[in-house]
């Protein structure tokens, strides 16, 4: 499989990433090199092993079912670019409906 200019533009849109026109040629080249490289996984047989491996505990240790919170040294308002009345403020939705 190879990645073309339109694929990069499409994936960048899915990733909510503004990519500059002048970077597209370089990105197409580098992403193709990566995709060509990972294609060697086609040599791995499809049988004999389970589909999923995750490290860590076999079972998640449950904590007491008691509501709690991490004490914060400063409130969210101090971190966010814009915050008012308990809400993060953003510009109008505009083109969100086009998704």
């Amino acid at each position: 499989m190879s990645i073309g200019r339109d694929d990069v533009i499409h994936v960048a849109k899915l990733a909510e990433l503004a990519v500059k026109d002048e970077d597209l040629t370089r990105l197409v080249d580098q992403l193709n090199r990566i995709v060509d490289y990972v294609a060697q996984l086609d040599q791995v047989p499809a049988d004999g092993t389970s589909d999923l491996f995750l490290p860590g505990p076999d079972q998640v240790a449950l904590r007491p079912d008691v509501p709690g919170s991490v004490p914060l040294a400063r409130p969210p308002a101090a971190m966010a670019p814009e915050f008012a009345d308990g809400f993060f403020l953003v510009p109008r939705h505009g083109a969100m409906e086009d998704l």
Partner: protein
Amino acid sequence: MTAAAVARATATRLAAADAAGLNATLHWSESLLDAEAARVDAMPAAGPLAAMPIALKDNIVTVQAPTTCGSRILEGYVSPYDATAVQRLRSAGALMAAKANMDEFAMGSSTEHSAYGRVKHPMDPSRVPGGSSGGSAALVAAGVVPAALGSETGGSVRQPASFCGVVGVKPSYGRVSRFGLVAFGSSLDCISVFGRTVDHAARVLSAMSGHDPLDSTTLDRPPMAVPAALPDLEGLRIGLPREYFPADLHPGVAAGMERVKQAIRELGAELVEVSLPNSKFAVPTYYIVAPAEAAANLARYDGVRYGPRKVGPGGDIRDVYQTTRGEGFGPEVQRRILIGTYVLSAGYYDAYYRKAQRTRARIADDFRRAFTGGVDLLLTPTTPTPAFRAGEKTEDPVSMYLADIFVCAISLAGLPALSIPVGRSEGLPVGAQIIAPFCEDERMLAAAGAVERVVAATEEVR
């Protein structure tokens, strides 16, 4: 020596490292060090890390200093809480000395991908210290601090430890809480440690290990003990995976491995050849799994919850997302987000992500088979070459990724592993990697302590 005196001496060394142009720190101040020292000196009893100054990779959050992850997108961000690891180290009496430079969001193998400039190798400024935890490695190697925290997703502590000639330890996945470690690849991420010696690293690991209710992937078992170095390695069988000793291994690395094999034999262990046939697929597997997880984890940096916000020409919310992310993330992070989004997108999930997950299971199975087949530990080179020159691999991402060829598989399998220095090749450090079964971190450290005692780590290999 009081913590106040330690803090003053540490500040002098940090200032000297900055003046020398190492570029290994992002944030530190004499006032923060003094406050840390006052806290430690007021402790009713000296903890196990009494007044040990420790540097933190800048993806581990603290309330007192900014956390940027080496990225413009987090410029000015200060966490409202401390990482669990930081809280535990403080309780053990350690001083948080500095936040260390790193590849942006821990993505890189050379610490050339920081938005705040590359970190220089302490022994040769034309070379890289490795990455992504290159700032932490350089600070330990330069003698600024005896220990530092880094993070591993695919070898980002062992590889720079090898390049810089210090000890680097990645614990078993789940032994150290990830609460307060900025997420990159959540099924792989581990807070890990650099130490001047195995003992420094083991003491730090022990102090911060153990179950944490704030991280449900931590193991429900007590904190790690600090193991004493074994007097010898009698009775141990140590496996040499043939896939990790290719014919084109750098001659200096090959000579370093011969030195450590000889030392291990003299300590009484038996060396046996084993095979990990799927390890050759570790790097391509990693470069599907990790970017896929990163694409999801980094979606939160959108200019809404974290600043600085950039509003694009359209002025609506999607312009905020796209412009903030487009201007805030550097080229390597953008590349990985694009690859991660691509392999998870409709039509490609089975071809890439599912296949990588299956291969990950096979890689982990290989290690399980080797250990259940009668091998106690595994020994490999940590890196295929000593530290490379700055700029040598920045234009070719695949070439950069291959610097992690001997460390990636262990991260995918969630196993403990460490790198110890075993010699110098033309003045540059060479490291050997010891790998242990899951949760046998203590045994690995005890064996490494024995090897460290007898290997001439700062002498040229022939």
